[in-house]
């Protein structure tokens, strides 16, 4: 018994480290004078770095179940967690000057952010419905609080309220679906559920009933159409640093949830949820791409762009093959990096009393700061899926997976909508390169932010030229 506990604790070392470190940061921050709050920030980055070390070094390459099957460490968990740490680290880095300029540079932002990361880690490593739900709620509650964090801002409060109500609704749906599944199968364990459902008698109408609610819950969390209403409002209303947080790393965790639920536990019902996803993705691609064209506010435009990307991600999952899961995983990681870069760019262009709100605020960026303009160009082309950027391979992989299972016509539909989508990304490039600047104030982001943004932007190109490594990792993570 003793040794099992130790084994369990050893497996969950990254989470334990994160929990301990967050609590420490919380207390530590109380005793740090405001002028030296940078210490908190560095501590946060060190926490993430430590978690990365524990996650990668602590993994022996195999698959370990712990805590009576509620928790799992496998290739997928390690890969996705590592990606989450990296993206979250970049998010905190981009946010720091923005928060300082607005008097929001307080420990709570980082503590909540780290609690969110902990929630994501638990989601990624969940092996039962309960632990999955716990992780999800930990993440969601942190996010609600972060959106409301700028308490003097009316749009932020409104966004937080909307997010909270709709998020709670979604959690309720998900929980209801899980409980129905529990009622039919009699277990919360992911592997047991999968086993039961793979038996003929397991596929009852009740199981399908539960499945529908689970899919709705997932769609809500991703913001897939028709459950997307909260996305633009929350993205636009939240302080940009929080939008950056919400828009990037949690997508990876949401993908992990999707995998654990749909692929691992409801895998035997692939044909059933595949149809549901097909409807969601067809709608998401259309609504996301077409409505984004009408947007003038940059954050709303990126929000609709997120919705369309969710459609693509679902497309890979819908294929229901290992190849498709790997493609979707690749897409999720790449998307998180692209979103971090694009929202991060808004923070880099901000200064005290000013932040870019409309797409025209990018006018003439090539004259004001050619390097940032070039990086944004890479990010935009990557989002549009134009080679040689990595966004192209992300789309290529999901479309290939779908074509391989015979979904040629949805693939045609998807590429047509990606052409429609290209328009609004190109419009950003148009403003940056073809128009003269109206604003003369120099863009002067800090050196650290410039360097990380450089890495972030050039990674789009580097991964675009050599996507093989990441793709191989994704394939291994799904056990291909």
């Amino acid at each position, binding site marked *: 018994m003793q040794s099992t506990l130790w084994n369990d604790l050893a497996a969950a070392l990254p989470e334990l480290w994160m929990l301990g470190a967050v609590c420490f940061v919380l207390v530590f921050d109380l005793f740090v004078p405001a002028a030296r709050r940078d210490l908190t920030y560095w501590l946060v980055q060190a926490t993430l770095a430590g978690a990365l070390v524990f996650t990668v070094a602590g993994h022996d390459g195999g698959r370990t179940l712990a805590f009576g099957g509620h928790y799992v460490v496998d290739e997928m968990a390690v890969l996705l967690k590592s990606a989450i740490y990296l993206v979250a680290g970049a998010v905190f880095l981009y946010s720091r000057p923005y928060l300082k300029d607005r008097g929001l540079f307080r420990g709570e932002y980082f503590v909540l952010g780290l609690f969110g990361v902990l929630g994501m880690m638990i989601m990624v490593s969940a092996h039962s419905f309960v632990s999955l739900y716990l992780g999800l709620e930990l993440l969601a509650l942190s996010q609600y609080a972060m959106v409301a964090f700028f308490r003097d801002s009316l749009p932020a409060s409104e966004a937080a309220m909307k997010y909270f109500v709709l998020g709670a609704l979604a959690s309720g749906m998900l929980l209801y679906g899980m409980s129905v599944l529990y009622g039919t199968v009699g277990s919360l364990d992911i592997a047991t559920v999968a086993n039961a459902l793979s038996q003929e008698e397991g596929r009852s109408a009740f199981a399908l009933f539960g499945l529908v609610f689970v899919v709705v819950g997932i769609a809500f969390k991703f913001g897939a159409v028709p459950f997307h209403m909260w996305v633009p409002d929350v993205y636009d209303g939240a302080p940009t640093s929080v939008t950056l947080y919400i828009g990037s790393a949690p997508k990876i965790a949401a993908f992990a949830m999707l995998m654990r639920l749909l692929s691992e536990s409801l895998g035997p019902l692939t044909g059933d949820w595949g149809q549901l996803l097909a409807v969601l993705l067809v709608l998401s691609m259309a609504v996301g791409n077409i409505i984004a064209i009408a947007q003038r506010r940059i954050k709303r435009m990126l929000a609709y762009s997120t919705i369309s990307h969710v459609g693509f991600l679902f497309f890979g999952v819908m294929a229901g093959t290992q190849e498709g899961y790997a493609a979707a995983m690749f897409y999720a990681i790449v998307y998180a990096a692209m979103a971090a870069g694009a929202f991060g760019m808004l923070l880099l262009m901000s200064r005290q009393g000013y932040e870019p709100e409309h797409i025209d605020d990018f006018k003439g960026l090539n004259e004001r700061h050619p390097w940032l303009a070039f990086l944004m160009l890479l990010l935009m082309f990557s989002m549009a899926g134009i*080679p040689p950027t990595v966004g*192209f391979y992300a789309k290529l992989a999901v479309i290939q997976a779908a*074509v391989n299972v015979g979904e040629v016509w949805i693939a045609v539909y998807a590429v047509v909508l990606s052409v429609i989508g*290209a328009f609004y990304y190109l419009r950003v490039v148009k403003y940056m390169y073809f128009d003269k600047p109206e604003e003369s104030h120099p863009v002067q982001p800090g050196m650290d932010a410039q360097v990380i943004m450089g890495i972030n932007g050039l990674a789009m190109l580097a991964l675009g030229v050599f996507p*093989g490594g990441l793709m*191989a990792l994704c394939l291994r993570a799904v056990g291909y």
Partner: protein
Amino acid sequence: MVDWPLLSLLIWVPIVGGLCVLAAGDGPGAKRIALGVAVATLLLSIPLWTGFERGTAEMQFTEFHPWIGAFNVNYHLGVDGISMPLILLTTFTTVLVVIAGWEVIQYRVAQYMAAFLILEGFMNGVFAALDAVLFYVFFEAMLIPMFLIIGVWGGPRRVYATLKFFLYTFFGSVFMLVSLLYMYSQSGSFSILDYQELRLGLTEQILIFLAFLGAFAIKVPMWPVHTWLPDAHVEAPTGGSVILAAIMLKIGGYGFLRFSLPITPDASAELTWLIVLMSLVAVVYIGFVALVQQDMKKLIAYSSIAHMGFTTLGVFLIFAILQATGGTVGAALGMQGGMVQMVSHGFISGALFLCVGVLYDRVHSREIAAYGGVVNTMPVFASFFVLFALANSGLPGTSGFVGEFMVILSALHADFWIALLAATTLILGAAYSLWLVKRVIFGKVANEQVAALQDLNAREFVVLGALAVAVLALGLYPGPLLDVMGPSIDQLIQHVTVSKL
């Protein structure tokens, strides 16, 4: 020299050189580096011509490295008689474009030069790629520099023109992507050469053919999807127009030869009527449209569409001949004619756009009505302009004659009426070209601006002179070019006559 990875160098030297130019920043240095890189690339492409083994249709200078293992995508390069001349055309034209932009471009000159060099690398990649994904990557990546070239350095309606250009071409090519992926799911390989051997049913072939048609017909461009071209040409800076007309349009024709014909021969045969119809409409109708243009660049743009109609006609005549006679006599003539037409049109349209650029730099107008009697003040320029205009109308002795003549001859094997309609170009081409010359070059000096014109400077003389030599050389002695492409064309004809069903 033979052991060098020549094709890789031709792709990566300009790209890396372009990045160096970007790093050098706006200054006199940037232009010099750009010219150096362009010339070095041209020199590197010469061994491609001298070391090319004539008499075989095999891929040469091949390079093969695994690239993306997870996707089974390889870095596979090689050229045959069809792609090699086009690479030479690319390296040659880029040097001229860099020289032509020397003084004219004042705004962000480093970015301008870098964009052209990177574009050159991508275009070489398109012609050299033997892996479908690699091809597609270059094919799409090419759009990015061109999008910026038109958008940043273009005319007043540049934003509209460049977005139209980008979205049109992007829209066409995504269907090709799906069909490439579909063929991967059937064959398990992304090699273009494997695709050519892949057996496909007729319905599959027709759908794939239409997907390719979407990509390449827009690129060529064929009527009725040509409308982006006049806009793009008019708004693009001179260098952009030159590259667009001289090389990018050729990628469409090249695509037909490399993809459509060998991969879907039965569908090509089935739908030949469509291509022949579209080509003839381009030749005849667009010829008339060119006649009424008021804007010089637009006139040349429409003339490009008409001339590219000859290329597509020549390429697809083989099926019309097969259906009419049951044999392939005359088919090689048509296909070779189409190829020669592509190279020749690269020289002529490039030269004409450069001529318009010369006038535009001085008068800042592209309206035909703004000129008249230019010969009085610019005699040297006028001689060049007349030469290129005559070549454009297909005067024997110039390169324009060779391709058109071969295609018309070949068309006679298929059907008299096709040949007759195609031959109207000799009248229409002469009409719009010579009328342009009459209005712009001859007559009395029209206004003070024309009276104040300075004749060509040394830089412009070199550029136009080089093109004039090329036009005459290809016109008087096309033999070497035909020798190079002959075996590849013959092999292609043999390949497409065997049904895949």
